């Protein structure tokens, strides 16, 4: 059975241009300055008129992906590059211990080589007993977890029961599969329900794994190394917290895309401990010197005061209607 056939359409569209919005045409104005310059306006308008509207017959429409590739080609010809989606460049992990789940995450959000947010929150609320860490594109993880959290609350109201982790997993994987990997959200989902603690890892293409310990993100290899060394089944809560803290610390110190503090979330039956921050691994140092000089450091030799003579040229009074 040969599995080596090549599907060109997905390999060429790995560039994520429009985070979140897939069928909407307008580009976010604030983040693109060169693209909307006069040179590009005519070609952009020409592109818009070429797209033909066609009734959608179910499933996701990938027409804009071809348009995006064309626009990128046009931009590259003139030497500009299109904006990159902001990724979280993360280390997230989770572990199952005796009474529940410990989820951990770093707090750095990067935009290319610059740290966009030094203390962002990557552990998202899904339901009172289920939390989800997100790696990948920041907007995608944020919106996906919010959508599923909202749907899960409606589902729980309709069933009258506390939601199960398997339900959240199924909803997330079906949504991500529907978007065929274009939603760049890699998630670690954990929670405690009536069947005990459960931990899932969910990949952007929609595949999931149910495991006792998982890591995701650019620092996942460093964190997984720590887990592989020290994980034991049925740990105590303190041991589990220490293990997760060390795994995230490994990711923070060995991966450029992860950094700042360590957030933990301990979920047990009936209780959630959202510890933010658990460990400030990278505290900003205190300056030892000061560049401000006290008054009088420089001695005054002479002082001359010259008043400027200003004459009134024109005076107008405009009354305001304050009735």
């Amino acid at each position, binding site marked *: *059975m040969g*599995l080596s*056939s090549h*599907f060109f359409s997905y390999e060429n569209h790995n560039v994520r241009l429009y985070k979140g919005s897939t069928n909407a045409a307008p580009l976010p104005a604030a983040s693109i300055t060169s693209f909307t310059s006069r040179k590009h306006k005519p070609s952009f308008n020409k592109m818009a008129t070429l797209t033909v509207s066609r009734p959608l017959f179910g499933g996701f429409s990938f027409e804009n992906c071809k348009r995006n590739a064309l626009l990128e080609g046009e931009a590259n010809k003139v030497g500009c590059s299109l904006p990159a989606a902001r990724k979280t460049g993360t280390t997230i992990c989770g572990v199952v211990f005796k009474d529940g789940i410990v989820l951990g995450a770093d707090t750095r959000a990067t935009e290319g080589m610059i740290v966009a947010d030094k203390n962002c929150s990557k552990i998202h609320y899904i339901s009172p007993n289920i939390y989800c860490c997100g790696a990948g594109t920041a907007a995608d993880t944020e919106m996906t977890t919010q959508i599923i959290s909202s749907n899960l609350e409606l589902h729980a109201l309709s069933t009258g029961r506390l939601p199960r982790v398997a339900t959240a997993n199924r909803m997330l994987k079906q949504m991500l599969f529907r978007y065929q990997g274009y939603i760049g959200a*890699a998630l670690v989902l954990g929670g405690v329900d009536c069947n005990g603690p459960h931990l899932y890892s969910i*990949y952007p293409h929609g*595949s999931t794994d149910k495991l006792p310990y998982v890591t995701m*993100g650019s620092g996942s290899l460093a964190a997984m190394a720590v887990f592989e060394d020290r994980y034991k089944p049925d740990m105590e809560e303190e041991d589990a917290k220490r293990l997760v803290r060390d795994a995230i610390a490994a990711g923070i110190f060995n991966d450029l895309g992860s950094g700042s503090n360590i957030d933990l979330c301990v979920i047990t039956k009936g209780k959630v401990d959202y510890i933010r921050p658990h460990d400030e691994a990278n505290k900003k140092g205190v300056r030892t010197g000061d560049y401000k000089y006290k008054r009088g450091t420089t001695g005054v030799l002479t002082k001359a005061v010259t008043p400027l003579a200003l004459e009134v040229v024109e005076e107008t009074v405009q009354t305001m209607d304050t009735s």
Partner: protein
Amino acid sequence: MEKHCTNSQVKGVSTGTTILAATFDGGVVIGSDSRASMGGEYVSSKTINKVIQVHDQIFCCMAGSLADAQAVTKAAKFHLSFHSVQMESPPLVISAASVLKELCYKNKDELQAGFITAGWDRKKGPQVYVVALGGMLMSQPVTIGGSGSTYIYGYVDAKYKPNMSRDECLQFATNALALAMGRDNVSGGVAHLVVITETGVEHVVVPGNKLPKFHDE
């Protein structure tokens, strides 16, 4: 992980696997390894189960993109249970294979997954069907699939005999999986085997250190 695999042509997590199924006298053995990889360089899971039960006595093995395979088998499981309720009898193995074939063929542009279906039914006894990447459906007494299968074609052709006994067939399947896992980097972990006969279903899990060893190990 944000890594997009450009060497392997499977998007996302790949099952990069060795799967096989063989009929013996009175039943069928279906088996797989348990490794899921990303881009041919990172093992994302050492213990995934690629042998999925789609009905009481029908199992299917998946190969290709893990996301596609999981979605298709879940849909097939639903279709099959609905079909069996409507027909008021357990489904035929060929029905299960056809359901998978329909899903793979109708969505051949978007999906990247292949399956081996094996099971027992009252009409034809033990059967093995293979649904290839584009949706081709074929019935064979023994079949192998996945990236690791290329290393064991010779072994399977030489060693398979029709109408073996249950234990002979189980040993044959274990040996074949062990040989493939020994040579293919994206197959590994434990060997999951399921023996399906008229009386029922038996799971055999052979952990990595209990796999048969060959001359150079």
